[in-house]
């Protein structure tokens, strides 16, 4: 961040930085960034500008928030959180992302690194065959239109009903894997045509399926409760979303919202911020379609998890139950939802967000774009770059008070994909990772290069920022052993 710009920020409490709304005409609330001083300094100006744009949207409550892994996206910054009043506020596809309900899922095993490492090539190769990856990527499950609509309504439970999961899985998914407001009628035929053959596919970009080992346990009691028992234990992490179906829902509604904004006299600083009043017919319809796409994503990760269980059962000659492949949690990080929070009663409370002052309960539409829900006693999964590792954290009361129950989602990019490809060839990166004991199989070498570890922020620094601001607390960290990528 530019030094002059940086000097406008004030640390209002440990690890939380405010740019007051007086900074720019049109800001309705402050811009508030969760970061260490280092990450704040390194935050790119494009992302901060986008955070300021968000603070200008109608009906925004509290602050336009950015998490420590924030970076320059389109519309909202990636790592952006914003809550809107249900009566006066808006709903924006640009505050969710095209990949609706992109999210993280973590499975345990009772295997150790010593047992898994000798078979990692076989495991990764079998996973690569079982879970289609990459451009287009159609799956093995063939659905009728009616079945696909059932998926939109039931989410993860649909897969469990079909035998692609365990009953208790849905208890460990945000919203139990199904958002009730979903309505298949709000979804276009084009969205259905794009997504109907993609259930159980990973996609590409930063999406991955990774076999990891537990590296450090920060809180043994919490870790025990979540089934993370010791260092060297093997876990599986899945990162993906709603595939072409969700992408088309986002595209469709962005295109209809833009011209419709005139009707509601909404002016936005960036076309990608096109939005509709939450209470408008258009807003309600998008919410119903978005929920359908979110449910599709929950189901997608459920089907992939089932494939993972099958592969492990095959490789180790034991059932997935015997391998204790339990679902730790499944958390969304591109989504908008109606949630309740206590916020300070008076408008002058901005400088004392976590002090006990008079509060009121509000129901708001929280947009999380590249940000995870972080409720107390709810696990949060932070996906790092494939070279550097990932984290399991626990949500906190602090997040409820300061960030509308939200925290980061990953390590956050610092380098563009185009630049990363200039720095390293995918083939060389694959060899280098193999030397470090990480076996990677990808549908695309150029895609692999784009995901090199140096293109990302330091995930440890991101976790330090979250812990300092108490928007979530670390439970364990993981290092990759094997990875499949799109």
């Amino acid at each position, binding site marked *: 961040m530019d030094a002059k710009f940086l000097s406008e920020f004030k640390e209002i409490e440990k690890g939380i930085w405010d740019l007051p709304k007086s900074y720019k005409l049109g800001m309705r609330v402050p811009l508030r960034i969760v970061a260490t001083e280092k990450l704040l300094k390194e935050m790119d100006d494009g992302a901060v500008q986008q955070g300021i744009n968000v603070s200008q949207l109608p009906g925004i409550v509290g602050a336009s928030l950015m998490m420590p892994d924030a970076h320059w996206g*389109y519309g909202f910054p*990636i790592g952006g959180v914003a809550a809107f009043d249900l009566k006066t506020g808006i709903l924006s596809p640009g505050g969710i992302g095209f990949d609706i309900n992109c999210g993280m899922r973590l499975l345990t095993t009772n295997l150790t690194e010593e047992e898994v490492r000798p078979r990692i090539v076989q495991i990764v190769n079998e996973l690569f065959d079982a879970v289609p990856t990459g451009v287009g990527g159609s799956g093995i499950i063939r659905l009728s239109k009616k079945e696909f609509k059932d998926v939109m309504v039931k989410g993860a439970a649909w897969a469990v009903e079909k035998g692609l999961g365990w009953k208790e899985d849905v208890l460990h998914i945000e919203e139990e894997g199904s958002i009730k407001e979903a309505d298949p009628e709000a979804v276009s035929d084009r969205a259905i045509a*794009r997504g109907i053959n993609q259930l159980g596919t990973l996609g590409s*970009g930063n999406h991955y399926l990774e076999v990891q080992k537990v590296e450090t346990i920060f809180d043994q009691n919490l870790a025990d409760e979540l089934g993370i028992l010791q260092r060297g234990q093997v876990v599986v992490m899945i990162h993906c979303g709603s595939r072409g179906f969700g992408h088309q829902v986002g595209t469709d509604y962005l295109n209809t919202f833009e011209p419709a904004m005139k009707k509601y006299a909404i002016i936005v600083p960036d076309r990608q911020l096109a939005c509709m009043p939450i209470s408008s017919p258009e807003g309600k319809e998008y919410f119903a379609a978005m929920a359908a796409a979110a449910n599709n994503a929950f189901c997608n990760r459920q089907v992939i998890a089932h494939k993972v269980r099958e592969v492990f059962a095959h490789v180790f000659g034991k059932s997935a139950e015997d391998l204790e492949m339990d679902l730790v949690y499944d958390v969304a990080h591109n989504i908008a939802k109606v949630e309740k929070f206590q916020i300070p009663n008076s408008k002058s409370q901005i400088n004392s967000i976590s002090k006990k002052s008079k509060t009121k309960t509000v129901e708001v539409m929280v947009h999380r774009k590249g940000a995870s829900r972080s409720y107390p006693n709810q696990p949060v999964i932070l996906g790092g770059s494939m070279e550097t590792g990932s984290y399991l954290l626990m949500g906190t009361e602090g997040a409820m008070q300061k960030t509308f129950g939200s925290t980061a989602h990953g390590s956050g990019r610092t380098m*563009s994909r*185009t630049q990363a490809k200039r720095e390293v060839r995918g083939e060389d990166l694959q060899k280098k990772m193999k030397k470090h004991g990480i076996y990677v199989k990808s549908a*695309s070498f150029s895609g692999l290069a784009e995901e090199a570890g140096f293109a990302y922020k330091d995930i440890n620094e991101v976790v330090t920022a979250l812990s300092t601001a108490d928007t979530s607390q670390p439970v364990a960290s993981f290092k990759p052993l094997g990875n499949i990528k799109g």
Partner: protein
Amino acid sequence: MKYRFLPNIATADLAFEAFGRDYNELFENAGLALESAMVDLISLKAREVKEIKLEGENLEALLSSFLEELVFIKDSEQLLFNNILCDVKQMGGGRWRVDAKLGGEKIDRKKHKLGVDVKAVTKHLFKIEVRPDKTYHCQVILDV
């Protein structure tokens, strides 16, 4: 130059600019830029031909829908293209239309050198212009 990818815009996404001597060529090159993000165009053969016709209320909207259509066909029909011919025309009432012939083939991850899956065509910093030197130019950010 037909198109190039821009390293310093939108960190997590993929920004490109495309050029042309007229709108036909600009649309063709923008289309090729998008396809080239998903596949090495040399590894693709034009075995199938598909024709599409689209209309837009202005040129920006038309270019957006043209690129969105290529993304749509990638998922719905599993087709990628390395041959694109466009005929872009202005119609009455300020509306625009494109008739495009697309040559390519079905995705085969064993045969094709695949790149990154394009999720959507964003409107962020979207630009289409005729420069003073009469080059036709556009800038597009893809969500990948």
